[in-house]
């Protein structure tokens, strides 16, 4: 280069329509050759105002909208919302409900991680992975259909319990999952763990130190990939997680490969919890008995006058929690999913705030990619596992 010429950088828009950005994320990259000098994520393309929508709905009518945030793990969102409202009302659910919720949310975690493992590996170049991962995911989607009648937007959890009784072949269906997925996982590990290309693309890429990870607000597998032991299920157990025996896998090298290993191990632990929940599944009602908040049994509605009145009043007017605000965090597949619900004493939420794990994790993307190659951006976006439906809400 002759003296006097200025070294110029190039601006490149990655997305919003780009297969590796997992939806409609736009990353504005300033490039010096192939090195990323500056990365600026732009979001909001999928903003649907779910928080505002909730303010004009009765409490129980908000549940279907929560499905649509993180659409790869709908039951986790349902659980977070239902637990928050139950906390606001101060009601307890039967033990059976807790077990079923734990079982289904753990399988949801496996389902979400299966989509992640498929798409992440596909972004990096292992194209066949997504086919294998979706093959196993299908078993869990079948279970969703069996319990709720829906394959994706299940809306199965209700405030104070579940929507319906479990189907008769529930045990059998869960057993199929518990058998099929470990077999599939052997395949994935054979394909990826020692795959030269996969290792080269992930080891040492997107390194973030534990202190920075905490400061950036990382949660979930991203934080644990950096070796920080924080799992909401262990730290502040909810829905009876203290009764289950499981380990929290931690990474050492704080890079993309460690986050991969953490998630794969997490799937194993989730299956372990699911097995314990299935084995110990107690008998009992599938809803709490809280008149005025939880619907009365259908047989009573059809035969008793009082139950019919309760049913009608609950559907038309809803219920009125006391004035106050609660925050309930759960360990969603992507990290700490928090629901902050403020009540002003009326039958609709005064304000519902969702603390989306993907949103906070994504805000640290520039920290992961700046100074690295443009090809690493794809690996980094994949490794923080974002769902734009949840980022934008």
């Amino acid at each position, binding site marked *: 280069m002759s003296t006097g010429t200025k070294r110029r950088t190039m601006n490149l828009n990655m997305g919003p329509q780009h297969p590796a950005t997992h939806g409609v994320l736009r990353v504005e990259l300033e490039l010096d050759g192939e090195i990323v000098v500056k990365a600026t994520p732009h979001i*909001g393309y999928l903003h649907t105002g779910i928080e*505002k929508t909730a303010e004009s709905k009765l409490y129980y009518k908000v549940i279907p909208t929560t499905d649509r945030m993180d659409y790869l793990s709908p039951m986790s969102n349902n659980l977070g919302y239902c637990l928050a409202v139950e906390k606001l009302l101060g009601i307890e659910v039967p033990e059976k409900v807790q077990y079923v919720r734990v079982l289904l949310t753990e399988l949801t975690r496996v389902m979400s991680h299966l989509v992640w493992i498929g798409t992440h590996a596909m972004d990096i170049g292992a194209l066949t992975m997504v086919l294998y991962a979706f093959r196993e995911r299908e078993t869990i989607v079948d279970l969703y259909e069996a319990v709720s009648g829906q394959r994706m937007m299940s809306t199965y959890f209700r405030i104070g319990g579940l929507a319906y009784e479990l189907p008769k072949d529930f045990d059998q269906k869960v057993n199929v999952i518990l058998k099929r997925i470990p077999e599939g996982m052997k395949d994935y590990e054979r394909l990826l763990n020692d795959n030269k290309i996969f290792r080269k693309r992930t080891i040492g890429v997107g390194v973030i130190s534990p202190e920075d990870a*905490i*400061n950036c607000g990382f949660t979930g597998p991203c934080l644990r990939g950096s070796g920080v032991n924080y799992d909401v299920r262990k730290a502040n157990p909810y829905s009876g997680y203290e009764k289950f025996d499981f380990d929290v896998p931690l990474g050492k090298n704080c890079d993309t490969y460690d986050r991969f290993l953490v998630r794969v191990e997490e799937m194993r632990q989730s299956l372990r919890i699911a097995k314990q929940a299935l084995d110990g599944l107690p008998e009992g009602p599938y809803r709490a008995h809280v008149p005025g908040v939880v619907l009365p049994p259908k047989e009573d509605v059809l035969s008793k006058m009082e139950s019919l009145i309760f049913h009608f009043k609950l559907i038309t007017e809803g219920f009125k929690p006391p004035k*106050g605000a609660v925050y309930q965090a759960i360990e969603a597949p992507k990290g*700490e999913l928090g629901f902050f619900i403020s009540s002003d004493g009326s039958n609709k939420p005064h304000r519902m705030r969702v*603390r989306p794990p993907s949103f906070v994790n994504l805000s640290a993307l520039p920290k992961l990619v700046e100074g690295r190659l443009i090809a690493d951006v794809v690996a980094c976006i994949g490794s923080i596992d974002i769902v734009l439906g949840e980022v934008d809400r």
Partner: protein
Amino acid sequence: MEEKLREFFESNFKDALVREDNFRGQQSFYIKREHLVDVCQALQTDTDLEFKFLSDITSLDWLGDLYEKEGRFEVIYNLFSLKHKYRFFVKVRLPEDDPVIDSLTSLWMTANWLEREVNDLMGIEFTGHPDPRKILTPDDLEGHPLRKDFPLTYEVPQFSFNKDEPPEVIL
């Protein structure tokens, strides 16, 4: 932990504390807005408390509420201590005509996007924020949707046959 926090506020920030509140076992402290950064920095660096994790920033609009005279807006900082596995809230009430508060981006990188979101949706200004752009809503949207006085109206879509007519707003 509530005792420890009370002691912390009593000994270090006696004049910053307005009142405290406990609902369903969750503790919150209302403080004056001038002291926000000092309080948060002290909580973050305190070797015993170690509130190193800023979980969330959110805001409420108390328009038309009984307690509106305390300030229409409420900004809520959700702090978590990884050491004690304990969560509590720092709350600040802001008046309607001057919803401005200091930014926490110097302490936590998380605050960057969370404050941008509160600014975008609730219209609270954060002084000292390095990048105060809109984040979720389109650039041409005026107003802040999460405010209670944001009109919930429906606009008739503009087609070629009615593009010259003024948009009709259905209430």
